[in-house]
């Protein structure tokens, strides 16, 4: 066991423990660590965006290289700040409209292809299958998609055959929820394990944890 002598490891360890104090109850130590994290993350993000996005993509070409074409994005960017002046706040809609137009134009056909076309294609049963397992898998998928879609079809009362099919759909949805819950438990544990590994390994120097 070799306790770390790195002051930054100590800072991180103390802040981690401060966050953990919330498990007992809300307290000023937790609040301090929480606010510090938000502040540092925002400040860090801002500096990175300034040097990696604003400076090379606008400041450098417009104000240093005098490429006048960049006046257009500069003008539309400035309009976002019109929200602060009530009289001119309507101007903020212009850059939003521009971005929405570009975004929609780019994403609608591709999103339709990604989410609808490809996913529908994969539910089609394509005979012959090389082995029984693949056929069973495709059949389960086919039945699952169909029954879940019928469960979400609300224009017809869920009675009789439709009611039975939609109940099968619920079973598939529940299995989906179960899988999501299992994965969520693993995800949350992993975050805690990561912190315990840091505290025991990097801070307290217990070598078996890493």
């Amino acid at each position: 066991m070799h306790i770390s002598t790195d002051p930054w490891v100590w800072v991180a360890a103390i802040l981690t423990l401060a966050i953990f104090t919330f498990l007992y109850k809300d307290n000023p130590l937790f609040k301090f660590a929480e606010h510090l994290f938000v502040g540092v993350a925002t400040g860090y993000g801002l500096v990175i965006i300034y040097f990696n996005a604003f400076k090379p993509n606008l400041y450098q070409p417009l104000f240093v290289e005098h490429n006048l074409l960049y006046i257009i994005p500069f003008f539309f960017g400035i309009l976002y700040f019109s929200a602060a002046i009530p009289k001119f706040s309507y101007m903020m809609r212009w850059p939003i409209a521009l971005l929405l137009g570009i975004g929609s134009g780019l994403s609608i056909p591709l999103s339709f292809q990604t989410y609808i076309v490809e996913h529908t294609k994969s539910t089609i049963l394509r005979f012959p299958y090389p082995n029984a397992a693949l056929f069973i898998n495709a059949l389960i998928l086919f039945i699952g998609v169909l029954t879940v879609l019928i469960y979400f079809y609300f224009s017809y009362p869920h009675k009789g055959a439709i009611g039975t099919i939609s109940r099968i759909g619920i079973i598939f949805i529940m299995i989906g929820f179960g899988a999501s819950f299992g994965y969520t438990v693993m995800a949350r544990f992993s975050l805690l394990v990561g912190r315990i590994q840091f505290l025991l390994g990097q801070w307290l120097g217990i070598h078996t944890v890493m």
Partner: protein
Amino acid sequence: MRKFLIKLSKIERRYIYLTLFLALTLPLIFPPNFPQKMSPTVKSVFEFIDTLPPGSHVLLSADYDASVLPEVDPMYRAVLKHCILRGVVPIGMTLYPQGAVLALDAFKEAEEYLGARRDTDYVFLGYQAGFQAVILGIGENIKNVFPKDYFGTPIDSIPAMRGVNNYKDIALVISFSGSSVPVTWVIYAYSKYHQKVAAAVTAVSAADFYPYIQTGQFVGMLAGMKGAAEYEYAVRKIMKDEGIEKLPPAKAVKGMDANSIGHLLIMLFIIIGNLGYFASKRRK
């Protein structure tokens, strides 16, 4: 017995936290060393990289921040080392402002343990703002999006980037993420440029991504700490087989030992909770 079950199901949450903390800590101090069998979705990614000809390029996009570090970071490190061990050139980049420093640390680790050399064995481009614009831009010409690498070296003068212009020259894109960014890669890189894409994601979002494997939009997927542990285990095996004595920390493999014990405990809690509920219901 019934009284005991009812009492147990109403136990204060702080005792549950303590039990959970011990269940996750003890396996880290006294590792049970559970075996890691590679699942099919991880195997697909592993075999894809394993069979690439040396000199091929793989784009590793570190689309994550510190909040998902324990799950996603070991994946990034393991895949990166695998590429270098097989002579495949990893191109590091990120769509997240915080991702650059985290990914850079992984490259430094590859330098330390595998002797990887910057600009020859790997390239690190760093961060570029604008998700869709960056992904679409790489499809046209990567040099327009990243004229210089993270260290300020012009892309044209980097030996490992010679002949790399767009997706046609990149064998695989892997998005390491704790959000829906891998789907953004599918929308703009796979659907538009037919670029092969794989995902390395947190467990909490993994269930949402399975349909993309079924459709073939993802080559494969590393899901959560389990996926990271499986890949890490396989890469460590390659390193041992190649006679590398100094091995990097096996954070995911050891973390998964603790995770498995914690999972069993949660299942036990659910059973006790339900038994207590039924016992109290019968009494009424």
